């Protein structure tokens, strides 16, 4: 591990955040661009859900996470508080692994 890597990664990671942050800030945009930007969270957060549930690196797989997240979906649908949703998902996943499902 070199300091070059640490500092170049820090600079690059901050640059991608800052470019996005200041690129469109404070300027009026055409309505169509606004409509599309407003959908970024829906598209990307939903993609984070399926990526973190069904993939490891470049592999797709169904493992105990799917059960835990399935329970989380039911909990959210039943309007459970956030903390309960997360604790339920982790507990169900951990128990499924203890039971031997890898």
């Amino acid at each position, binding site marked *: *591990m*070199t300091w*070059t*890597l*640490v500092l170049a*990664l*820090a600079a*690059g*990671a*901050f640059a991608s*955040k*800052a*470019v*996005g*942050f*200041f*690129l*469109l*800030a404070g300027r009026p945009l055409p309505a*169509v661009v*606004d*409509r*599309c*930007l*407003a*959908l*970024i*969270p*829906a*598209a*990307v*957060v*939903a*993609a*984070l*859900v399926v*990526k*973190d*549930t069904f*993939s490891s*690196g*470049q*592999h*797709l797989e169904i493992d*105990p*996470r799917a059960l*835990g*997240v399935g329970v*989380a979906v039911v909990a*959210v649908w039943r309007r459970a*508080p*956030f*903390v309960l*949703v*997360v604790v*339920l998902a*982790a507990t169900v*996943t951990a*128990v499924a*692994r203890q039971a031997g499902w890898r």
Partner: protein
Amino acid sequence: MTDPAHARPSAGPSAARPPHPWRDPALRPVVAASVTLGAAVGVFAISFGVGSVSAGASVLQTCVMSLLVFTGASQLSAVSVIGAGGTTASALGGALVLAARNGVYALTMGRRIEGRLPTRLVAAQLTIDESTAMSVAQDDPIAQRAAFWITGLSVYVFWNTGTLIGALLGTAIDPVTFGLDAAFPAAYVAMVWPQLRSPRGRWAALIGSVLCLALVPVLPVGVPILCAALAVLVGIPPDHSATQGITP
């Protein structure tokens, strides 16, 4: 740091709100949620600290990485490439691709976070999966900003504390044993839920998910999430129903 959530009083519906939005009882669930997420992040940070030191980084390098880079997936990927004998260039390339998704989040957050330049630079550094997702799950602009700052700062504190503990102790707690790898997608389910109220939100979520899963096996790690953002193109046709779930 000054309290950034009310650095600039804003006009409109928010002007009638109390002057200390962070103490708004309505934000208590956000605080509880951000501490929960922070704690889960902290356990991953411990395993990052352990992994980084065992991949040959010093304790100082490990902590500086968490303080400055502050995007966990990129840091883990850089450390694992170096640990596997990869070059600095290959470690950097993969990690920067992973970091690029924060730029997509920042497109959204940059239009919502107000304040002077230093405040906004700090906000840019805190623009990550958790803070963005927690913010967009809120309904009004004040709550969106407060949720962003509370979650970003909570994750920052836990991520860096956990990194230091892991780097010093060198004994890993395996987050997988406690099911913590399922904590994040579960949290994102709760956060994306309000986005699904509008038909377009549902379409964007569906197409983004399908795109991401379809591309995971064929594209480098980190790129599928970027491609998922293409699903926002469902927003192009004019909206006649005016039932969009979020305020830009």
